[in-house]
């Protein structure tokens, strides 16, 4: 753990999280985990479904993906309307 306070340019030695091969590994692990979690849908039974959609294959997986993208898209759109300069209220 560094205790050096001086701020200098990014270290010559990137941390474990910053090395490209590790980033690739993490993303790969994520994809594998996603695949496992979707396939797991085949191995259990939902005893008390409240809605039909709940039991369709991989529902919350694709819904989570789509909802995330939609929220970010809405945010980007909202920005075009509400964005102002940082000192807008101080002028």
């Amino acid at each position, binding site marked *: 753990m560094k205790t050096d306070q001086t701020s200098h340019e990014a270290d010559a030695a990137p941390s474990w999280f910053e090395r490209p091969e590790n980033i690739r590994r993490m993303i790969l692990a994520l994809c594998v985990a996603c695949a496992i979690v979707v396939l797991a849908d085949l191995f259990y039974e939902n005893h008390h479904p409240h809605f039909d959609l709940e039991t369709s294959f991989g529902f919350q997986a694709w819904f989570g993906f789509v909802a995330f993208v939609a929220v970010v898209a809405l945010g980007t759109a909202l920005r075009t309307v509400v964005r102002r*300069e940082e000192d807008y209220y101080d002028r």
Partner: protein
Amino acid sequence: MTGDLFIPPGLIMILGAWLLPFLGRRVQAWSVLVLSSLSLLAFGLTAADSYGQIEWLGIELVVARVDSLSRIFGVIFHLAAILSAIYALHVRDARQHVAALVYAGAAIGACCAGDLVTLFVYWELTALSSVFLIWASDNERAYRSGMRYLIIQVGSGVLLLSGIIVRYVATGSVEFVRFTPEGGAMDAAAMLILLAFGIKCAFPLLHNWLQDAYPEATPSGTVYLSGFTTKLAVYALARGFPGTELLIWVGCAMTLFPIVYAVIENDLRRVLAYSLNNQLGFMVVGIGIGTELAINGTAAHAFCHIIYKALLFMSMGAVLYRVGTVKATELGGLHKSMPWTTGFCMVGAGAISGFPLLSGFVSKSMILSAAGEQHLFWVWIVLLIASAGVMEHSGIKIPFFAFFAHDSGKRPKEAPPHMLVAMALAAGLCVLLGVAYPLLYRWLPYPADYHPYTAAHVVTQLQLLLFAALAFVFLMKTGLYPAEQRATNLDTDWVYRRAFPMLIHGGSVVFGGLDRGLRRAALGSLQAFLRGVRTLFSEHGLFGRAWSTGIMTFWATILLAFCLLLYYL
């Protein structure tokens, strides 16, 4: 009613706060911790009952009422006070300690109030004390933001008082019980009180004080602020308006709009304030549904939320304390020099997202199940969207842009030990409650026959969260994710910060112009008249000049001749 001596919950903290200025600087911070702990002890020893029934001006007051609903809120408020006190051990400003202690004590007193008048007193006390935590930042922005906060909070109190008066006149009682009878309509008093509660709970359109004021407080101040006001409002709504259908829709709106704002916000504590708003929406939906499972879910969610929200604000507060800013544009790569803070932040991020084995999973799922049991399909869909949204801003954005992303070159020291201890305790609680959830369930208002760890729940929740994370990776790789930018995003505070002042300024310009014009015209015509008179009476004017004798005799002769003619005609 017991005849023994009892201590109204929270009073130890409120009265103890006034001793603080007489203690040494270093002792003050520790005294806050000691007083909060003593208060928790006293609260634990207080049996469930009604206390302090007194008559005041002919009105029946019940100063303290401890039952299963107020008990769970009382306990979590105490825990929040203790965690925040540990976090604030570095503060050498007596103002902040006194304000924080009174604030926490008033919130505890309020959630145990048995009648509306007592509630009102504590309600206003929370507003008056918490504003000092904002002003303690000692800058112009914080001063103005605190003023807006104070006006809005006191406004909520005024509405509450009006509702109480209307209710007292109509029913003769100020008992704090449910205001909406089964299937009945709301009367005027109930509407006023609902509005008052709604302001403090950050209902849509009434919400912006939350995002305006919380980021302006000190690092430890915001940790305190995050725990009490809004959750007190949740308690009040749960007590007064359970099962009110309107609240389901209000809550749904509350879960949706903040997650969109959170995507584009730069100040990370403001992102957390929007996140707070979103989580309150879950609780309000639970209150609106009103079944035992739903109310249990709301109470459980409030309990867990206070802890993981405090944890997130603590980690951002630590960054602010060490780096001097929490703007995403200026952070990044901090995991290299603040690894513990990073780790604790990620526990909080996982908890708020609802990862299995963390506290959010065992609480949020109750509200979703309650919606399912009532067959509220679209409400359930909205809550799922909101859950994906939470993963976006709190699960990913906050830890990623502060501690990872690109390297900002900043190498701040790790957070000071007492902050690490506070964060560790909060993180530990997040894990404990997630794993040993029966510990939480026995405090819930209604008996909880709920099992969160079913295969279906765990798998579907992991699907939601992991695919949301995948979506983030996808958006980043394709460059579609919006970059962090230095900017101000307009929200409803624009109305009273820009629109109203502009209207008033515009109005004064128009009226000022009219006024000036009218004055000018009036004065002008008066002056013209006076000028005319002066000309007439001047040396050469009609009435002013000297008439020669010759002309006078001439005209006098004409006049006499005229009279002679008339006499003979």
